[in-house]
């Protein structure tokens, strides 16, 4: 059942792309089936109390690598799974109305969305850490495709690239961390790790490094400082995508990972400083940036980042036994942020505007949507009557608890950041709701307004209603959270609307007042001069870096002279010689004896022939005229035939004679075509003296390395050479006595086929080179004068 729930979106995805061509906009209804099915299946699993608290499913995938499709089901994965599939239903429903028929390639859009959903479900249910990483990256890739869906616009392309680069590169850190974890613990199954715990005693260093690397991955995905800048740019995606990926699900993967790691890593001394500083810094920074943004979706993006910072930071503050309210915060954020995104989408759809300053007075036109926005905004601000109020009370309680116990500097920092951020958050929540729905209606709105359908608004209303329902009746959640509690991670406390006249309540009230005050200040000044300071525009810096990187690669390519083979070659040869030489010197034990054994084994005849070959080869170097060089070369080739004979290789000798002859004729023909002047001209350009010496040194080093390699390798022959087997089998299996022939034709016939293919390709290449027809300027202007052919003679005359 679990596999069905996970697999459906994956399997269904390509069909959606195909169906999109036939059905057009109606494909959305087809797409809706997938998340609904998944939600129902997961819901049944979640409600089934006969199942153990943690169980798993395993399917073999790549057994040789120990990589199986193993899934882990516990409270955490079920909760995230339900959020993913449930939001999937609402978002696709919303998208059907939002996108309408305005967009092209709708099938592809839903296909990406379904694939993304499958990847998300895979990530949260993955048991094998490598599997988790694979799905993690798949969400990144699908997110890239979805952000860049409107690839006609540059903003989409830039945003998509940024998202991919940031989440992709931090994903690599996650991979490194996962690998380290695997090495340190000897297992890659999360369920096994959760049962056994980590060996902090023996492998503490490795585990700490793994933790930091995995957290970097989580920070990147959840857009935490200093990777916070990609999320607002990812808002170039269609609004349903933003609502789904960039608020409700994908960016929560970082939170999910931190929650997964919590029971294992919370004892680490680095846990609190790292999560506390990063999380709460992000919370404050993003809240301030949200207040000074004016674009509707940017405000929402920054506020999402801020809330994610809090979600991650609260895990940092948590005590060893488990945190109290993470499920509440998570659910709360899903409800109000998903709602607000959809509200924003509807408002933008209805008015065609994005800037809060240009909007206003929509409440009269869209009262239902306005109610939803008020509820969700109130939930974001933490006003009573909503789930956000409970969340804020819980947050303050969790923050004050360690303060009373005796504060460390980290906790003080966290409390400070969270306090200021909450005030700012109230201000921008207020601004968002009043700015869009209340006040005077600007002319732009009246001019462009067209009424959105009820279907588009419905998901937002549902989410807002949920926020309200749970807010006034939190007892509903108690049972659910208790059932989903994971040992070592959650310690759910009962929720209540009224906690009495506590410190938290007064603090909360004080914050609301300060927030309203802050908003009032902004409103009076007309939000003039409120914009993101240049120093904090990290996305610009990142773009600059990416652009510069392209420049650097160019410098490198130029520096290595890859565009000029003649200059590039010495670099390559030097590298090869140095690598092989270093290997010879460093890795082979007893190099001296192996290079110069007692039994030198010089055969007089072979030595003589070898000396002759060497002489002719050096002759090629010394002789000045091409013809003389060629003759010397040919002699060396034929002597090599003789050398093959001495090595008991008659087949080689025969082939070599043939090939040598044909090559000689070919090169002679070539040289005959060259005029004498070319040969004279050759000597006029000589390289500089030092280049010359460098070439000589490099050549000598190459020769030495080659000699050394032969001596070292042959000094210790393999005890069972493969050739012996071929010699044994050549008569019984291949019915031929010549082992070389049977090897080529029978045993390794396909290799010979490949060899013949190479010859054919070379022949075609030669033919192409000969036939290439160079047009004269007149022909380029007038078109070809005659059929292309061996246009050699004409060429020689011009």
């Amino acid at each position, binding site marked *: 059942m679990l596999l069905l729930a996970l697999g459906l979106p994956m399997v269904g995805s390509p069909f959606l792309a195909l169906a999109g061509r036939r059905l057009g906009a109606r494909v959305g209804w087809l797409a809706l089936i997938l998340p609904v099915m998944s939600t129902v299946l997961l819901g049944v699993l979640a409600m089934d109390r006969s199942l153990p608290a943690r169980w798993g499913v395993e399917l073999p995938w790549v057994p040789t690598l120990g990589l199986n499709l193993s899934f882990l089901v516990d409270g955490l994965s079920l909760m995230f799974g339900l959020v993913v599939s449930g939001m999937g239903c609402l978002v696709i429903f919303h998208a059907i109305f939002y996108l309408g028929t305005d967009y092209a390639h709708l099938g592809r859009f839903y296909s990406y969305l379904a694939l993304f959903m499958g990847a998300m479900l895979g990530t949260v249910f993955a048991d094998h850490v490598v599997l988790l990483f694979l799905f993690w990256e798949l969400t990144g890739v699908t997110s890239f495709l979805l952000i860049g869906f409107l690839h006609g616009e540059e903003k989409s392309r830039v945003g998509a690239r940024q998202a991919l680069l940031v989440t992709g590169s931090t994903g690599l850190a996650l991979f490194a961390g996962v690998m380290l974890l695997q090495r340190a613990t000897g297992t890659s199954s999360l369920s096994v790790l959760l049962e056994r715990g980590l060996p902090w005693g023996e492998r503490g260093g490795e585990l700490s490094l793994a933790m930091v690397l995995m957290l970097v991955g989580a920070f990147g995905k959840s857009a935490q400082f200093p990777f916070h800048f990609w999320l607002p740019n990812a808002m170039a995606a269609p609004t349903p995508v933003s609502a789904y990926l960039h608020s409700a699900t994908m960016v929560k993967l970082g939170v999910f990972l931190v929650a997964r790691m919590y029971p294992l890593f919370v004892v680490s001394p680095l846990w609190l400083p790292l999560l506390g500083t990063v999380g709460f810094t992000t919370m404050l920074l993003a809240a301030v940036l949200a207040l000074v943004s004016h674009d509707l979706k940017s405000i929402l993006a920054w506020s999402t980042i801020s809330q994610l910072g809090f979600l991650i930071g609260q895990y940092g503050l948590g005590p060893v036994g488990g945190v109290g309210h993470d499920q509440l915060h998570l659910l709360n954020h899903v409800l109000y942020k998903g709602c607000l995104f959809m509200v924003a989408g509807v408002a933008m759809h209805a008015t065609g505007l994005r800037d809060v300053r240009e909007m206003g007075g929509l409440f009269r036109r869209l009262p239902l949507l306005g109610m939803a926005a008020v509820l969700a905004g109130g939930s974001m601000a933490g006003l009573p009557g909503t789930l956000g109020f409970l969340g804020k009370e819980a947050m303050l309680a969790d923050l004050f608890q360690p303060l009373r116990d005796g504060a460390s500097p980290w906790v003080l920092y966290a409390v400070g950041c969270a306090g200021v951020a909450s005030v700012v958050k109230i201000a921008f929540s207020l601004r968002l709701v009043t700015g869009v729905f209340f006040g005077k209606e600007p002319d732009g709105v009246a001019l462009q307004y067209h009424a959105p359908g009820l279907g588009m608004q419905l998901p937002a209303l549902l989410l807002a209603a949920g926020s309200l329902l749970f807010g006034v009746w939190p007892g509903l959640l108690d049972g659910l959270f208790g059932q989903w509690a994971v040992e070592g991670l959650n310690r759910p406390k009962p929720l209540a609307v009224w906690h009495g006249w506590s410190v938290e309540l007064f603090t909360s009230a004080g914050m609301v007042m300060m927030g309203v005050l802050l908003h009032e200040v902004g409103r009076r000044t007309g939000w003039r001069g409120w914009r993101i300071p240049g120093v904090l525009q990290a996305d610009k810096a990142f773009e600059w870096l990416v652009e510069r990187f392209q420049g650097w690669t160019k410098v490198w390519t130029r520096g290595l002279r890859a565009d000029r083979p003649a200059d590039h070659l010495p670099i390559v040869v030097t590298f090869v010689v140095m690598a092989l030489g270093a290997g010879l010197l460093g890795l082979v034990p007893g190099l001296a004896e192996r290079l110069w054994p007692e039994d030198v084994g010089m055969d007089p005849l072979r030595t003589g022939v070898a000396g002759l070959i060497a002489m002719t*080869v050096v002759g090629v170097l010394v002789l000045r005229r091409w013809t003389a060089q060629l003759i010397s070369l040919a002699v060396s080739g034929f002597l090599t035939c003789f050398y093959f004979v001495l090595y*008991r290789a008659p087949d080689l000798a025969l082939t070599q004679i043939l090939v040598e002859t044909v090559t000689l004729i070919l090169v002679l023909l070539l040289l005959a075509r060259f005029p004498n002047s070319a040969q004279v001209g050759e000597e006029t*350009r000589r390289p500089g003296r030092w280049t010359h010496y460098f070439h000589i040194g490099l050549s000598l080093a*190459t020769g030495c390395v*080659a000699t050394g390699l032969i001596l070292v390798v*042959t000094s210790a022959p393999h005890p069972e050479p493969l050739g012996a087997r071929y010699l044994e089998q050549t008569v019984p299996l291949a019915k031929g006595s010549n*082992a*070389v022939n049977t090897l080529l034709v029978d045993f390794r016939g396909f290799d010979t086929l490949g060899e013949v293919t190479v*010859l054919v390709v070379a022949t075609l290449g030669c033919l192409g080179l000969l036939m290439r027809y160079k047009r004269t300027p007149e022909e380029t202007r007038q078109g070809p004068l005659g059929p292309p052919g061996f246009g050699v003679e004409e060429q020689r005359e011009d």
Partner: protein
Amino acid sequence: MALETALLVGVMFTVATYLILQRSFVRILFGFLILTNAANLFVLSMSGRPNGRSAPVVLEKGVPMVDPLPQALILTAIVIGFGVAAYLVFLLYRLFLDRRTTNATEMYEEP
């Protein structure tokens, strides 16, 4: 272990590398041809010293024979080397026709 082969291959590699590093296309071609032979001999030397062994043709039992595997590899290599050499020859010819030069430096200078 065959010292003379090792030295010979060393000499051939030295000369071939030097020639290939030159600017003259013809010399590069010659260097390539020498390099082919040098590489073949390199592989051949891996079959060990042939003294007291016969060619890998099984006529009667019990006679020690040389390793046929390097020979098979070289046979393929010779043919492919020839294919590439032929291609190089035609490439040079074409270059000369189009650019009127047999020298790499001149080719860069006069695009």
